[in-house]
């Protein structure tokens, strides 16, 4: 039976427009080009900046207040004589967090892979609106520029933490970064949210309307399910952050009192009366918690696809996987209060949020077990993408398990805002999602650039990164359980914590190692774009539709008719077929049963 049926060998229907450099590379409306733009801007450039910031923070924590040539070079006036300033430490924390969560792992991750894969995997010629898609990218680009520019204003960028709780973020006299820096942060994020909403709406409409013949919702690859549900979560929750940001802007600039009341600062009483910072926390976390799933779900979707393909096995429990994505999406909107157990809100609310929070552990556990079962009796092809996917499952488990502690209000009292939290969320969301991004890049590089990445460099990249990630974030739990608060510029004023200082040095070493090995990735990535081995059409022998499209990118994705779909995406090693994969566009043979999933 031929696995490569139906689609190619049609002649070119050739709806060719005249393309200039500008319309092809810059103001492109083609989803594949926009995906690459997101990849370069969101993941690569913003990722490098975010990682550099984290390394500087780590060096400051390990060797507090010591002169450091790197600070001098990179921070300039913020590090007089190479000694990092306390204000700029908080700015680094803030902008690192913001860049990583929003720019790299929301826009970068979804922007790259939703854009690339939604049309290609559902069999559409492009996004529902190429124009909106282009606008979405350029708004994102603008928000990046503004965020970076905030480093060059007089009193530095926003420094109130990525959660920007008022009054700290609202009052310029409370902190240098709360002046112009915070204004730019808010403007940048408002634009970012607009971009994200346009993108999400586009993804949702495309998935609903543009699926090719035969691509029913129950035949959608899990990647698409994940991207689709992620977009819905985004549309539900980002507007709430936008409104919080707008109200904060009003408090800052127009004297309203939404979040402020009874404030005495720098010798004067301010006029604010009747507002509540706790209200802001509610609004922020109504986005903030779903946000971690906006970051995580696409990564899990990518992993589902890659693990199935490289195990040469169907993903185990397709239906349960879809159900857990939906359950996670729903539950994620009613757990935000677990960030606020000790914010001063009513303790009874705390109980409710503990309950909903621990509920969300159930679909997460189902997903983890289903991944593990997918590996069982597989024929695992250890491509770099597969390694990163397995790595993701590993960090997802390690990081997720400590959520049981943080979600339990009684236990959170004591570890809230300590390094225990930093360890938890970096593993479960930061590193996991980052692995998802890497897995996606290795896997779909041939689709994006028509060339292969070097696998041996991929192996080095994975193994060193994996060791560094555990080396950084695993011992960090213990530092947290020693009571060390996060967002501290130095711990040297607390002899109490002197006995974790050496551990902090070790963690920093691992962080530097992890940072260094990303250079291998960068080299591999850039080099492969130009000199990589030319890719075959379906290098991983995968079932999904994107691999039926020609290697060379064309407008409209398929030269002839769009392939029709006859089966789900996971017919790997199906009995009755010679090959160990059966692409979705291959019709069922006489008497073949489609798996009832």
């Amino acid at each position, binding site marked *: 039976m031929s696995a490569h049926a139906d689609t190619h060998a049609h002649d070119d229907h050739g709806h060719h427009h005249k393309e200039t450099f500008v319309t092809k590379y810059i103001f492109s409306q083609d989803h594949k080009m926009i995906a690459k733009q997101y990849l370069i801007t969101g993941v690569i450039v913003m990722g490098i900046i975010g990682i550099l910031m984290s390394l500087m923070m780590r060096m400051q924590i390990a060797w507090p207040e010591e002169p450091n040539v790197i600070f001098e070079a990179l921070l300039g006036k913020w590090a007089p004589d190479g000694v990092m300033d306390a204000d700029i430490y908080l700015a680094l924390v803030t902008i690192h967090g913001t860049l990583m969560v929003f720019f790299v792992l929301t826009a970068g991750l979804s922007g790259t892979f939703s854009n690339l894969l939604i049309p290609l995997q559902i069999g559409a010629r492009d996004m529902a609106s190429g124009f909106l898609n282009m606008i979405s990218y350029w708004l994102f680009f603008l928000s990046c520029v503004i965020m970076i520019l905030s480093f060059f204003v007089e009193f530095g960028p926003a420094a109130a933490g990525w959660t920007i709780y008022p009054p700290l973020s609202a009052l310029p006299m409370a902190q240098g970064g709360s002046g112009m820096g915070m204004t730019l942060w808010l403007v940048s994020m408002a634009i970012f949210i607009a971009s994200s909403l346009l993108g999400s709406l586009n993804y949702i409409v495309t998935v609903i309307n543009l699926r090719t013949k035969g691509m029913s919702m129950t035949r959608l690859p899990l990647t698409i399910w994940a991207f689709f549900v992620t977009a819905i979560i985004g549309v539900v929750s980002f507007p709430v952050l936008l409104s919080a940001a707008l109200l904060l802007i009003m408090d800052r600039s127009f004297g309203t009192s939404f979040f402020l009341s009874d404030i005495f600062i720098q010798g004067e009483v301010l006029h604010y009366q009747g507002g509540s910072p706790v209200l802001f926390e509610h609004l922020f976390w109504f986005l903030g918690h779903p946000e971690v799933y906006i970051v995580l779900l696409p990564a899990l979707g990518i992993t589902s696809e890659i693990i199935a393909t490289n195990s040469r096995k169907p993903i185990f429990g397709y239906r349960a996987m879809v159900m857990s994505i939906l359950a996670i999406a729903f539950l994620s909107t009613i757990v935000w209060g677990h960030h606020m157990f000790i914010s001063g809100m009513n303790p009874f609310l705390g109980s409710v949020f503990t309950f909903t929070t621990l509920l969300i552990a159930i679909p997460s556990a*189902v997903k983890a077990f289903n991944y593990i079962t997918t590996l069982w009796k597989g024929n695992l092809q250890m491509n770099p993408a597969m390694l990163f996917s397995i790595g993701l499952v590993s960090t997802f488990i390690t990081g997720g398990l400590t959520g049981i502690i943080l979600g339990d209000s009684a236990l959170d009292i*004591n570890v809230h805002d300590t390094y225990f939290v930093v360890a938890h969320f970096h593993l479960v969301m930061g590193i996991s999602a980052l692995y998802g991004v890497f897995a996606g890049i290795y896997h779909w590089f041939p689709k994006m650039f028509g060339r292969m990445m070097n696998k041996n460099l991929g192996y080095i990249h994975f193994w060193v990164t994996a060791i560094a990630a555990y080396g950084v974030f695993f011992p960090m739990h213990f530092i947290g359980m020693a009571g060390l608060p996060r967002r501290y510029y130095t711990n040297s004023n607390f002899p109490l914590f002197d006995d974790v200082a050496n551990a902090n040095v070790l963690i920093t070493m691992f962080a530097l190692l992890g940072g260094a090995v990303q250079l291998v990735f960068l080299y591999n990535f850039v080099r492969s774009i130009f000199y990589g081995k030319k890719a075959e059409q379906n290098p991983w022998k995968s079932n999904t539709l994107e691999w039926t499209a020609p290697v060379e990118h064309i407008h409209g994705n398929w030269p002839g008719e769009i392939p029709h779909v006859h089966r789900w995406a996971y017919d790997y090693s199906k009995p009755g077929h010679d090959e160990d994969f059966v692409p979705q566009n291959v019709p069922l043979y006489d008497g073949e049963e489609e798996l009832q999933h």
Partner: protein
Amino acid sequence: MTAFLTIIIVLFIAVAIWQMVKIFDLAQVGASNNQVATDKDNKINGYLMMGFLVFIYVITILSFWYLGDLPLVSNSASEHGPQIDNLMIISMVIIFIVQTFTQFLLHYFAYKYKGEKGRKALFYADNNTLEAIWTFIPVIVLAGLIIYGLFTWTSIMNIDESEDPLVIELYAQQFNWKARYGGEDNTLGMANVRLIDIDRANILGVDESDPNAQDDIITTELHLPVGRPVLFKMRSQDVLHSAYMPHFRAQMNCVPGMITQFGFTPTVTTAQMRERDEIKEKVANINALRAERKEEIEEKGQELLYEFDYLLLCNKICGKSHYNMQMKIVVETQEEYDAWIKEQKTFKNSLTN
């Protein structure tokens, strides 16, 4: 200097990695390699998966070994502390078991089923019984944890005012803490930041006309009599702060414009705590480490010798000196406390004209 040396070392490592990269790269030129994993790759990476499993176990053991003296699960100094610690230990044991087991399965399968040419994977797409099992096991375990957790939480957060707790206000400002005691009547006078009058040294904005306020006592150290329930009323004058008292398993945010509260009963005096073996050992260890950094510490003008004290830390980002916003807590016997409080000035007498 250490920083500089380390950076150099890291640079060397980077160069070494770089060289490795080059070698790999050159070795591949000309080989008919299409960059898809071969059986050999599968094998090597399969073994590395087992190696990584060992790495995870080793780093777990080492972390427990070197950092396993966990102040947040031992030596609590409040009545509800052991409750939290028990729950924490139970949770950690469960996590430890699940972690060990699932990481084993994941990495072992990755090793066991590493791909070989010609072998076919098992077409195995679903099994409702299995999935029901791993839905229900977490449900049961989590239900237990939730119930235990909620009982603990409720008993901590519901403050029983009939026990006549000592009422103390914790007042936060950038970047220090004040404590205000109710005085003889154990009742705090009204206060609002609008009443702050720096010239008259009314720094907390206490209402001078309130009779309850006259005998209030404002201090920069927090003294607590052992065994008596304390009810903290938290206030902040400028931005969010968080009153974190790790030894007492206590934390609550201080929110401008509102009064938050938290209550606990201290059970171990500072003097008793200093006599505990674990604490002695910890202090000795810290002092040994400090001795190595003698010059640096003295240069900063800090005391070289560390002595154990309970602390109140700020645990909510509040600006530049967030990292140094602390207050000493002293737990002492009722007599010591009485003697101390008698020496403090009352609010009425602390005002200047």
